[in-house]
């Protein structure tokens, strides 16, 4: 079981220590356990929640939306109708993004394969030049 300092968590999740303190201050993260000396110690559930926040931010969700999604995450059966609706809408956004990412992945894989096979020039460059 984890019992990590704020510095270690910040490094591991590539977030600043100020951001971690801020999430706690605005309630996105419940009050983190402190040692007797008042030093924050992050547990597994805190890390899991922070990873969720980070993923949601990467999808450009607002902090307010993330707060609602976290409520759903904690207690999906008793979530309010608006929170359920928000979660459904966000699920659609994530699925759309996944489709777009999958298309991009296949496009890049094809271009990389062509580049690897090429002895003269690289089609990736050709394509970028065409698009410009």
């Amino acid at each position, binding site marked *: 079981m984890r019992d990590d300092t704020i510095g270690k968590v910040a490094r591991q999740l590539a977030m600043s220590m100020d951001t971690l303190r801020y999430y706690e201050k605005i309630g996105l993260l419940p009050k983190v356990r402190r040692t007797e000396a008042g030093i924050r110690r992050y547990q597994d559930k805190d890390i899991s929640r922070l990873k969720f926040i980070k993923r949601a931010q990467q999808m450009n969700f607002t902090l307010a939306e993330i707060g609602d999604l976290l409520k759903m995450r904690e207690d999906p059966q008793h979530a309010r109708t608006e929170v359920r609706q928000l979660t459904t809408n966000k699920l659609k956004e994530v699925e759309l993004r996944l489709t777009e990412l999958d*298309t991009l992945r*296949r*496009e890049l*894989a*094809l*271009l990389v*394969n*062509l580049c690897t*096979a*090429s*002895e*003269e*020039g690289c*089609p990736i460059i*050709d*394509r970028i030049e*065409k698009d410009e």
Partner: protein
Amino acid sequence: MNKKPIDIEVFTSTVCNHCQRASRMVEQLLKEPGFESITWREIDVVAEIDLAVTFCVLATPSIAIGGALVFTALPSRQQLRNAIQHYLLHERPNDA
């Protein structure tokens, strides 16, 4: 008027060694008896990358028959002939 779908798509690029052979093989095979009605076209994957991605093309040459990727490398003449025959017998829409 509905445009007839293309039966065979040959995905090529300027950087592959076997692409020309693949196109030539398709062109020659389609002159054989029974295959005359089959339509085909060559697709440069760099010029039409969106289409290539739709077909999940990852390398050239690749050959799609009836809208599905069947060969992801240069097939033998007999393999290609068999695939076309299978398509004609089992998969080609009747009104094509």
